[in-house]
């Protein structure tokens, strides 16, 4: 009886494996130079990409075989490991500064490739019963998070929300207690867009000058306090806020209109933003235009990049990095991440440009 059960399981399993392996072999023949099927790729970095990377890896490995690893070690460590050669690709929430760039360049032997892979709007969410949406300009948001506005019925909020029923509740602000790219992008937005209402420099650590806020661990920690505390307001990845569904969301004042967070709004701002200064042609690093004014724009967002070299000594590695990154920035990859991680898909122009940069990856020097 035991053996027959075993056989019943083993037979289809072997069959499936055979088919799988055959398909993998076919995939190899299709790719330019072959031999990439069994390659193991190690990479890692920004934790913001974790969910998206999981999707991309699963989908890519299913089609092309091989193994792709992504360690969630944080942007700083990811870049460090890339420059030391431990990773063949890395994810980072901030584009490389000049020191990191020269370290990466000397490891790769040429300018490193830096393409946007994960774009996500950041929502400012609040917990007020009966209120689902509020309009705020960036100065109001800065004043709230700096502890200058302490009541929900403050005239500065009320004047932008005629008709909304604002209670006399105290505002309690929630921020990240861990270092995070979300905090960096939120404070970057406040310092650039609030006309001086926000005095602290952008940083991954919440500034000590902002008084009276509550710090919570990770996006889920922030969401926990937000949903538990009437009168709370905080910032989190838009996907997390949408998934929760109970919180109100702030529409940012952009130009003369108020826009809620949308994937398209974030992608449009990224597409229209100027390239970062002093970057090599293989880098798509962008200084996000936090003061964008086009209709529908949503400039409060996070952009996470992928790093790779233009050449790898091993042809298997070169092919796999090239294939994987091409998939990530392709519309298929971007849509898959949008579905599972709630990110904003790159618009077609950016996606095309990224693809053309990635196509330069080759083996040998």
């Amino acid at each position, binding site marked *: 009886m035991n053996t027959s059960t075993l056989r019943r399981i083993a037979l289809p399993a072997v069959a499936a494996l055979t088919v799988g392996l055959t398909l993998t072999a076919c995939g190899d023949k299709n790719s330019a130079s072959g031999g990439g099927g069994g390659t193991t790729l190690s990479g890692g970095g920004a*934790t913001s990409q974790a969910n998206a990377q999981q999707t991309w890896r699963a989908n890519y490995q299913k089609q092309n075989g091989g193994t792709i690893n992504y360690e*969630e*070690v*944080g*942007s*700083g*460590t990811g870049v*460090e490991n890339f420059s030391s050669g431990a990773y063949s690709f890395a994810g980072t929430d901030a584009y490389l500064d000049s020191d990191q760039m020269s370290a990466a360049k000397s490891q790769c032997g040429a300018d490193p490739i830096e393409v946007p892979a994960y774009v996500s709007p950041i929502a400012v969410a609040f917990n007020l019963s009966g209120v689902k949406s509020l309009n705020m300009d960036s100065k109001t948001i800065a004043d709230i998070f700096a502890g200058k506005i302490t009541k929900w019925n403050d005239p500065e909020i009320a004047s932008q929300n005629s008709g909304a029923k604002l209670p006399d509740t*105290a505002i*309690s602000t*929630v921020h990240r*207690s*861990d*270092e*995070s*790219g979300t905090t960096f992008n939120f404070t970057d937005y406040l310092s650039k867009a609030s006309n001086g209402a926000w005095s*602290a420099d952008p*940083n*991954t*650590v*919440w*500034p*000590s*000058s902002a*008084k*009276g*806020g*509550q*710090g*919570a*661990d990770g996006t889920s*920690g922030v969401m*926990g*306090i937000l949903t*538990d*505390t*009437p*009168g*709370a307001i905080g910032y989190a990845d838009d996907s997390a806020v949408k998934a929760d569904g109970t919180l109100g969301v702030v529409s940012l004042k952009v130009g003369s209109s108020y826009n809620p967070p949308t994937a398209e709004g974030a992608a449009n701002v990224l597409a229209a933003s100027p390239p970062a200064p002093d970057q090599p042609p293989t880098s798509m690093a962008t200084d996000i235009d936090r003061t964008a004014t086009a209709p529908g724009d949503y400039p409060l967002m996070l952009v996470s990049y992928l790093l790779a070299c233009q050449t790898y000594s091993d042809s298997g590695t070169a092919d796999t990095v090239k294939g994987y990154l091409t998939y990530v920035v392709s519309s298929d990859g971007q849509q898959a991440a949008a579905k599972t991680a709630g990110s904003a898909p790159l618009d077609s122009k950016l996606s095309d440009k990224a693809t053309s940069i990635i196509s330069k990856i080759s083996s040998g020097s």
Partner: protein
Amino acid sequence: MTATASPERTESTGKPRPSQRGDRAFAAIVRVAAFMILAALVAVFVFLAIEGWSGFTDVPETYAPFTSFLTYIEPLVVSTILASAIAVIVAVPFSIGIALFISHYAPRRLSAVLAYLVDLLAAVPSVVFGLWGGRYLAAYLQPMQVWLHDHFGFLPFFGPGPPTPNGRSLFTAGIVLAIMILPIITAITREVFVQTPRLHEEAALALGATRWEMVRYAVLPYARSGMVSAIMLGLGRALGETMAVAMVLATTPETTLNVIGVASPPTIAANIALNYKEATPQRQSLLIATGLVLFVATFLVNYVARWVAGRNARKMAR
């Protein structure tokens, strides 16, 4: 035993007591085990010192949102002390009460069940305590903290800022810590109470002492050094507890003595857990340096505790 001893005898010709060889082997094994502890401690210390050394004196940007090591660690130290103090103050009376009940008051069957339940409490993982404390207990403790603020707000521990809106304060974190160290203190003090010589207790009762007087004059003095050790072990756990604090406490970088305020700085251990995964190499050194401070502090606390306990034992012996 004899079966294993006989081949040995044939091998070791001339030795009169072959069982000594097994003895010596066993002694060597336990000695290695004992030195392994020492080696592990030294290894941890060396790791912390080497990896964290550059964290003590780095460029000001590393210490964001502060500018130097001292200003960076000061709020963390204050919070660590406050949280542990709350935990010990709350846990000790409960633990000693439970331990006395189990050892001297409860009927045998009930005491066995109770002892088992207390041990079970020690088996709950700290993440679970963190989740429960932050999402559930905090909401129930919040009205109590508002009350404390309203009536004792003049004390630096309960004012002057507004009380917590959701109970995620250092006070709640301290209570959760108290629940976590309670089984440790209870288990050890219970064992010590049970050790009280039967003759002492019976002598006290024979002299006309009530139950409470018997406990007071026979059990507690005898158990004092054991109680101190138990409390210090609990304190050590509270000082180093990480996840529960990180998950319960709403944090802020500002130093504050107010344990029921809107937010407090995290404890040293919680701060490491919160920040390590996204830290740059410089920040990692800084976090390891704070870990070294905690390591040395915990070491000192334990050393003082040993000394206190030893002094009491010496006094008892006289």
